[in-house]
């Protein structure tokens, strides 16, 4: 198509658009030589070429991006980790809160373990220990009166303090296994030394399951934790220790923790000591063994 006075605009636009071949560009130039008055028009066409305003940008492009596989973005994994830990902590706090008869508010409590004749005391609720000595005492006595009577009789019936001591000196494995006991509602656990299986792990468990059933029957709000799961308390503890250790430098709410469950007394005797961790004002305890 030949360039004419009627179609030169199309040529100019094609020129501007880069659609012209070298030969055609030459033709356009020659045409403009003959029609210099149209050169201004070509300049105007050139001005119709839009220039992007580079000051207009999409803010926060990072928010559009996705995680690339095989690449761990520290911030994200850390956030995930934090959320997971926070969730676990909330479960701790929630369970503990509900499990506390008086539902005491968040407060850092000084640890006082119950010093009873109990050879093995599992203790994870400081405030509950206090309560047992006060308000809960009556309630618990009511529930455990029968149980206590029996165990006291059993203990009274036994002969020989040495034998008792020997029986009470439980092995670590035994201690570690007797854990399905919620001392928020149980002020003491008695072990007889008569040699029978009254206080075998299974029987202790069973008795406390029964106790729990009584408690639940009496007042369902007292506890919402199943003690049938033998690992419940221990798992809490392990979680608490794990978090305490891993979050040592992160969560200021963890005031103290202790990984070593045993301590050596004078004379080399190794006893299980109470371990505790304070998470956001709640203390979590392992068990304490006291030898009388």
């Amino acid at each position, binding site marked *: 198509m030949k360039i004419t006075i009627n179609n030169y605009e199309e040529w100019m*636009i094609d020129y501007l658009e880069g659609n012209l071949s070298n030969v055609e560009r030459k033709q356009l130039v020659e045409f403009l030589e003959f029609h210099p008055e149209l050169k201004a028009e070509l300049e105007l066409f050139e001005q119709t070429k839009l220039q992007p305003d580079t000051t207009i940008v*999409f803010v926060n492009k990072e928010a559009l991006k996705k995680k690339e596989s095989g690449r761990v973005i520290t911030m994200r994994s850390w956030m995930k980790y934090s959320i997971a830990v926070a969730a676990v902590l909330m479960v701790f706090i929630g369970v503990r809160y509900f499990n506390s008869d008086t539902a005491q508010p968040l407060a850092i409590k000084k640890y006082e373990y119950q010093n009873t004749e109990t050879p093995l005391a599992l203790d994870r609720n400081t405030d509950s220990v206090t309560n047992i000595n006060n308000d809960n005492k009556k309630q618990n006595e009511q529930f455990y009166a029968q149980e206590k009577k029996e165990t006291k009789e059993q203990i009274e019936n036994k002969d020989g303090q040495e034998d008792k001591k020997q029986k009470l000196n439980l092995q670590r494995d035994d201690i570690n296994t007797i854990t399905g006991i919620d001392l928020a509602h149980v002020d003491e656990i008695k072990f007889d030394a008569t040699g029978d299986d009254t206080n075998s792990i299974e029987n202790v468990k069973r008795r406390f399951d029964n106790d729990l059933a009584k408690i639940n029957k009496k007042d369902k709000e007292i506890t919402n934790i199943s003690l049938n799961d033998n690992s419940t308390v221990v798992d809490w503890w392990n979680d608490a220790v794990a978090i305490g250790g891993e979050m040592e430098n992160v969560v200021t709410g963890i005031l103290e923790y202790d990984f070593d469950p045993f301590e050596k007394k004078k004379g080399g005797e190794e006893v299980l000591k109470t371990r505790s961790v304070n998470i956001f004002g709640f203390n979590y305890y392992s068990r304490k063994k006291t030898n009388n």
Partner: protein
Amino acid sequence: MTPKEYNQIVDLWADGVYRFIRKNLRSDDDSHDIVQNAFEILWKNHENVQFDKAKSYLFSTAYHNMIDHIRKHKRMDYVEEIDEAAKGGTADVQVDVKDAIEKALAKLPEVQKNCVLLRDYEGYAYDEIGEILQLSESQVKVYIFRARQSLKEYLVSIHHLI
């Protein structure tokens, strides 16, 4: 397209597609939402979209989001711009060519404007523009031709006023 390539697309074209949408809508927020939505759709389909097609896919998705948006909000933003441009063209003549082009651009029919925007801002070929705007290649060429003619006429009229 891998997630890595998707992120490259974000770096390469987020600004461009935003500029393109922003030229059609007056609201920063609406434009932002439309672009964000387009990227979400791209991400959902990233496994099926090839890297070299991703830009077109992105612009096309954003464009259709925008059309939906304009339809939903019946008061089309560009209409307002035309009114404003018309006022400026008669009462308050802008000598600045760039401003004049902006005003003239706002006066163009939407399809012409978008053809020129994609052509000049992003350097798209006619067939690519056709893909995005769902037009034939020859339609795109005609629209661009008409758009440039209109823009030039507008400049001529301003020059005459001056």
